[in-house]
Each structure stands twice: as structure tokens, then as C-alpha cells.
């Protein structure tokens, strides 16, 4: 592998790594949100949960 090939590989690896870290952070955040939704669902009395119509959350 020549020097310029090494540098080009490094540049593309950097791009891939940054995007991967970003997606990882987002995945961890979504996990936390899921946990919080579960906690809130436990706090809502069962009768209320059955009667209240649920509006779908707007995501994305």
C-alpha cells in the first residue's frame, strides 16, 4: 500500500467512524427514551390507559 493510498483510506475511515459514533449516540438516546416511556407507562393507572385514546407520536 502506497503512502497516498494509506492517507485516502484514513480519510474515508474517519468519515465512517464519525458517522458510526453519531449513530451510536442516537441509538443510546433512543434506548434511554424507551426506558423513560416504560417508566411513565408504569405510572399511568391501568383504567386511564384503557380509556384515553392514544395519539401517535410524530417521529422524524
Amino acid at each position, binding site marked *: 500500500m502506497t503512502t*497516498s493510498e494509506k*492517507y485516502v483510506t484514513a480519510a*474515508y475511515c474517519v*468519515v465512517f467512524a*464519525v*458517522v458510526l459514533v453519531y449513530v451510536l449516540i442516537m441509538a443510546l438516546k433512543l434506548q434511554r*427514551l424507551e426506558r423513560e416511556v416504560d417508566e*411513565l407507562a408504569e405510572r399511568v393507572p391501568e383504567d386511564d390507559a384503557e380509556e384515553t385514546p392514544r395519539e401517535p407520536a410524530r*417521529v422524524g
Partner: protein
Amino acid sequence: MGRTARIPLPALAVASLVLVTTALAFVFFVVPNDANQGFSQRIFYFHVSIALTAYACFVGAAWKAFRHLTKQDPDADLESYVLVHQGLIFGTLVLLTGSIWAKISWGHWWLWSEDQLVLFLVLFLFYCAYFMLRYSVDPGPRRANLSAVYALFGVVLIPVSFAAIRLAKGLIHPVVFTRHGPNFGGWILVTYCIAQAAVLVLAYTLYRLELGGKRLDGRLRELREALA
């Protein structure tokens, strides 16, 4: 809600994957080596695409900020914030890939004498300060208004950056887009266009993903307060 906001996130993720893979295949297997720079010129396809995407994010953030200030659009502040964040992520990639390219081509990681590099760094640091401003003010209309005004000021730096590059003399950083169009054609242009489309779609996918997470976070906070 815009027409593009109706595209499902999984479809966008698949489109990003297909486009990025196609772009990489073109960069490494289709496009020929550059006559002057050889193999190292292949950084250009993603470096320039990422730079233009970062600019697009900052322009988008300014547009959303303008909508927040003029139409009092309730979602615009959050959208503007997410776009600035995206712009900074892509800005970081521009600085990193640019430094690697500079090391191969010029033998230096960074040159303070190059206006294009320094002006991009100024733009990048300006938007870093956006977060310092935003988080120094309590959440509410005041924070949204201050952030919107700051994002609008930032967008002025983009044409200044472009103009200064073209007015400066003795540059070693190449100028690939002139008044007469791009300085390249054939497979290089085709590959660049695919790479640009790939990075733009990837940026939009990440924007939608982050925006979705932030909206969900906001709704959960409201629910928690209502239940308290």
C-alpha cells in the same frame, strides 16, 4: 409539514446506504487517477460533498430561524438547532478530511496562510459558539429568539467565505467551482454528483433521526410534568 418529511425514515436510511455504497464503488473502482495528484485526489469526492452539505445545513438552519422569527413556526427553533448541529458534524468531517488531504498534497496538516481553510475554521467556531449561547439561556421564547438571530448572522459568513477565496491571490487550495461551472468533467463529474447526492441524503436522514429523537424527548418531558 414539508413533502419530504413524509418519506419514512427506514426508506431514507436504505437510500443513504445504497447511494453511499454506489459513490464509494465509483470513487475506488470507476473514476481514473487524477493526472496531477494521482490516487490521493479520491478524497476530493467526499471532502467537497461534505463541505457543501455543511454549508447547506447552515443555510437550512438560517431559513428555519427566519421562519421562527417571522411566522412564529413552533417547530422551527428545534429544526434550526438540529440543522446547526448537523452542520457542525459535517464541518468537523471537512476539517478532518481536508487536513489529511493537505498532508498528502502540501506536506502540512494545516496552513494558516490559506484563506479558505482559515475562513472555514472561523465559520466552524462561530457555529460552535451557537451552542454556548443557546445553553447559557433558560429554555423558552427568549432562548429561541436569540438562537434564531445568531443562526441568521452565521449564514452571512458563507458568501463571505466564498467571495474571499475567489478574491485572494497565491492560493494553493484548488477552486473547483468557478463562474463558468465545475473545473472537471466526465467520470469525475459523474462520481462527484453521486457522492454529493449520497452525502446530502445521508445528512437529511441523520437530521430526521435526530429531530425525531428531540421531539420525542420534548413530548416525554411534557408528559412527565403533567403526571408529576
